[in-house]
């Protein structure tokens, strides 16, 4: 494997950091070289955030070069769109459908674009787009806050990751508070199964 690049894009507070860290921990468990980039501080206050995970022997930098993402995991539709600079034709885009309207929209009395329009725009750059209703699965698992773990499960469900699914589960166990482990592992499983259905399409 040359390198495997994952871009996780969302809004501050959605749990992109934890999902990226889980991928990093899983890579270390599988004895792979890995770099994870994060943005802390001011940007976290409800602003656009992006974390990147790069796995591979010759990986030095933690940031992904334009067009080089293998998977773009969008936690929010507009943020998925914003981070298409990392995508190319070969990139698999997994997008959470949950819309978080930026304050600019309310201030200008504008409405949030339709999901179909967003998907159409993504298709102009990346061929494969899979939608995940993370909120629905998180609630089903028992806690709406577990959306990020649903999406992590969805990533595992693609069967494209260089890390073992079991290592990811272990990482989740380490990262979430003990009393929330069961809910999160359930969320992970629901996310994973939701993607498996699409596997033939992608």
């Amino acid at each position, binding site marked *: 494997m040359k390198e495997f690049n994952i871009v996780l894009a969302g809004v501050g507070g959605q749990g992109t950091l934890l999902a990226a860290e889980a991928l990093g921990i899983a890579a270390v468990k599988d004895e792979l070289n890995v770099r994870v980039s994060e943005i802390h501080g*001011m940007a976290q206050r409800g602003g*656009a955030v992006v974390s990147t995970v790069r796995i591979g022997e010759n990986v030095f*930098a933690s940031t992904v*070069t334009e067009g080089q993402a293998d998977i773009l995991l969008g936690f929010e539709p*507009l943020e998925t769109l914003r981070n298409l600079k990392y995508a190319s034709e070969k990139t698999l885009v997994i997008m959470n459908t949950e819309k978080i309207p930026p304050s600019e929209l309310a201030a200008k009395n504008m409405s949030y674009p339709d999901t179909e329009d967003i998907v159409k725009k993504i298709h102009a750059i990346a061929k494969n787009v899979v939608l995940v209703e993370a909120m629905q699965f998180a609630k089903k698992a028992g806690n709406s806050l577990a959306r990020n773990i649903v999406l992590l499960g969805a990533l595992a469900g693609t069967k494209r990751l260089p890390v073992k699914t079991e290592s990811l589960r272990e990482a989740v166990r380490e990262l979430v508070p003990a009393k929330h482990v069961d809910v999160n592992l359930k969320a992970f499983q629901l996310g994973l199964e939701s993607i498996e259905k699409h596997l033939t399409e992608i």
Partner: protein
Amino acid sequence: MPDSKVLLQDASGKRMLLLGNEAIARGILEAGIGVVTTYPGTPASEIGDSISEIASEAGLYMEYSVNEMVAVEVAAGAANCGVRALTAMKHVGLNVAADLVMTLAYVGVRGGYMIVTADDPECYSSQNEQDNRFYALLANLPCLEPSDPQEAKDMTIAAFEISEKLELPVFLRTTTRVSHTRGPVAYGKLTKAKLRGDFIRDVKRLVMVPAFSRPKHEVLLRQAAKAKELSETSPFNRVVRKGKEIGIISSSSAFNYSVEATDMMGLDAGILKLGMTHPLPEKMIGQFLKAYSKIVVVEELEPYLEMQIKAIAKDYAPNVEVYGKTNRQFFPKEGELSTRLVATGLSNVTGKKLPIDFQKMSEKYAEVTKNLPARPPILCAGCPHRASFYVIRKVGGDKALYPTDIGCYALGIAPPLNIGDILINMGASVGAAQGISKVTGRDTIAIIGDSTFFHAGIPGLVNAVYNNSKVVVAVLDNLATAMTGHQPHPGTGMTGMQSTTERILIEKIAEGCGVKYVRVVDPFKTKEAAAVLKEALQQPGPSVVVFRAPCTLMDAREKRRRGVKIVPAVITDKCTNCLVCIKLLGCPAILVEEGKVRIDENSCSACGLCISVCPYGAIEGSCAE
């Protein structure tokens, strides 16, 4: 990270995924450092925060100092008693500490002492992107620059050996991309922290009056010459790749991009990686220059290496061409670098075509994302600053001027609050307000946070009383250093050792400084707060209004812990969709969907502010004022 306790594992050889800053914290434990001081600041904060969580267990002393200058004073005091000490800060913190650091270089240290300066190319969370390697050059002190978390840990340990050998403080200069990158780190052996030291009286060494400073300057220069010898043989300075086409010299994250850009371009390049960037290994660089006709210097921000390398070239290889960012610009001086930017620069130097058509890619991206609404950071739903700003704007309107300061409340500049007319550095709001008020005669309200007030606001306040300036100082006290991760400060009654202490009240300080009109208000009681602020503006001299309410993130965490349910506010039938709540507050929990106002129950924190501004009484909730 699951828990900072994993840093305490006595498991030599174990590989762990650590943030650059956590790797430095592990280095602190492996080097047996006794005293750690810091003032929080992105991207340095997690060094102090991880140590704070484990300090008592690790048997070392840790403190959140009141500012970076005091942090260095405390640590340098301990280091001069033979204890190993470390101070961590963001780049601009070193400006605050610079007065001390410049002369501490003369005094030196007995126990090892390292200053972490975490620079922020691209201003991810800062007011500027200054290149602090120049402080090493200015102060004649050694400087190490890691490029990944493993090196951040290794260099932390090595810095103490260098520091003790030379009896000088050593800088570790990281950047956001090093401090906030996670990577595998191999654990080494833990060393028990040495906390006890002894002070040896030595006036000629420690008291910098002119007669003793002059000879100490000579001592410093002699030690700097020794540091240069160490740099020549440092394992952190090495040729990592041999190649014929061109030679690349690089450091820090720029090194990472250089390796990947070279691979992407298929260049047969030699790469000299510099990890000790002050003093530079002149002979090593000279030998490297001799092997090439073209040398490319790849570094972020200022041409710090390039200028010195050009000087070295004059002595060692006068015919070599050095490409970088002086004269012709192959790389930008502003912002952070990337593999793309480095590859583009290398392509321009060598004439070799880029294998990826980035230009075309960018054009397509621009087309697809045309008119995409921006999503800048904003004040959280329920943030008490929003209530304070609502009150301040209601009273001061467009006529008053609002110098502001460093912290979450800088986000008040966003519409519709529009509070914040000038922002430069920590504490400057209080001083700037006085100059502005004196020459404009306009109502001037300085906005400053609690932690910033303690850090650098107090001298400005004393100045306002002394020089009888007619300003209002509005201290937005959310009971934490919130922006950087809710660290405690002198007004919280908690310490970095996570024990309780005397709580210092801002209003008492203001009174002690001689301010005649001092009031504390709850920003969510908007009417009362507005009346107080109005009165404050009537005062002939300076006045202080403390707007006190806890950070909503902290408050929500506390409520979750206690099992208190947050019942969000709701919009009733009385709503006319006049949008006044949105136009006045810009709260992210208030949305417009299909022309109708709605409160998002997932993000509403039940602060009640919208209830008090709705002209139709159409918002209800248990949280009403």
